[in-house]
């Protein structure tokens, strides 16, 4: 077929495209993924029975904002990487800033704490399982985000996959806080970050395999 004929074919009877509908897919992915993440947390892991009581502690809100900020930044990166030719914007600066801020808080917490308390601040009671449970809770979000990503046109596949994993991990971590009893900054700085990095790595690996178009 001549290229000219292909142009006629493509343009013949071309209809309007609903751009808002396209953007709405992200919200569906987030809502669907987060709902399943919540069901996993509430059903499999059980909600933290003293959750309400903990809302009075400042560290509770530090933890929630940490996950939420990372989730928002990751999600912005996802949305932008899904479209050809968009710059990344805030994410490449914002994410390191948030992570470093938590590390600074962790170091300060450890320095101020008495030496016999330090191991507990780092390990808490759930250090061994925390990263894996975050990855588990993040899984439905990762699937949903990659699914929607496939209907877009990412041109940097590894980054698009990694960003999907990072956003899924961070939002997954936020949902996981409804179960997690840990509030110490050193714990969050290490194990939450590791938990987020599991789906990030998985996403970076899956990106070039699943997102090609």
């Amino acid at each position, binding site marked *: *077929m001549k*290229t*000219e004929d*292909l142009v*006629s074919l493509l343009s013949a009877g071309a209809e309007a495209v609903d751009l808002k509908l396209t953007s709405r897919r992200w919200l569906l992915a987030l809502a669907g993924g987060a709902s399943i993440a919540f069901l996993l947390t509430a059903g499999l892991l059980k909600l933290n029975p003293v959750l309400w009581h903990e809302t009075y502690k400042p560290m509770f809100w530090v933890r929630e904002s940490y996950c939420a900020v990372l989730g928002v930044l990751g999600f912005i990166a996802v949305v932008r990487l899904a*479209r*050809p030719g968009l710059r990344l914007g805030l994410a490449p600066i914002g994410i390191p800033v948030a992570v470093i801020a938590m590390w600074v808080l962790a170091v300060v917490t450890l320095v101020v704490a008495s030496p016999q308390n330090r191991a507990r601040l780092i390990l808490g009671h759930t250090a061994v399982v925390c990263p894996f449970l975050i990855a588990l809770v993040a899984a439905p979000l990762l699937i949903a985000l990659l699914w929607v990503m496939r209907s877009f046109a990412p*041109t940097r596949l590894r980054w698009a996959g990694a960003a999907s994993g990072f956003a899924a991990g961070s939002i997954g971590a936020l949902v996981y806080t409804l179960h997690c009893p840990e509030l110490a900054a050193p714990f969050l700085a290490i194990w939450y970050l590791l938990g987020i990095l599991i789906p990030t790595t998985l996403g970076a690996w899956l990106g070039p395999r699943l997102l090609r178009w």
Partner: protein
Amino acid sequence: MQLIEERLRSLMLQSLAGDAAAYRVFLDELTARLRSYLRRRLGGLPGEVEDLLQELLLAVHNKRHTYDPKQPLTAWVQAIARYKLVDLLRRRSRSDVLTDPLDDDQVFATTANDAAEAQYDVTKLLRGLPDRQRLPILYVKIEGASVTDTAVRTGMSESAVKVGIHRGLKALAERIRSIG
């Protein structure tokens, strides 16, 4: 450059709003620009230019919903072109480049007229699609029938006709990719 951007962008916005005539002009201008871009980039593989050009046009069409009206259109097209070009070169390097008839036949096989024709035939590829995709594309896109008439002719619903066109063009792009 600024002029091209403004012109193409406004054509694209009209196209996305459903103006098929504007879309035709848009694709024609894009074809000319992409062709000269690909000729420059694919100097060593002249036989690939028209193939990749058609693949690019299909990609632009199938992915037009990913254009963000707030971004420069040229950046959007450029990113798609670069992605497809890299994709092609990667596929090329995987298949054995040395056995490709790059040197002998191309010069003589290509006349000015053939230059606008791809090595694969979209019409043939079209025949390989299932009827629920092939017929809507054939009637609406090639014969120029309306969606309503096509629905009556095929016994499909109007939305099935539209879905068939959409999925068929995506399947076509997939098939072209797997050939190259």
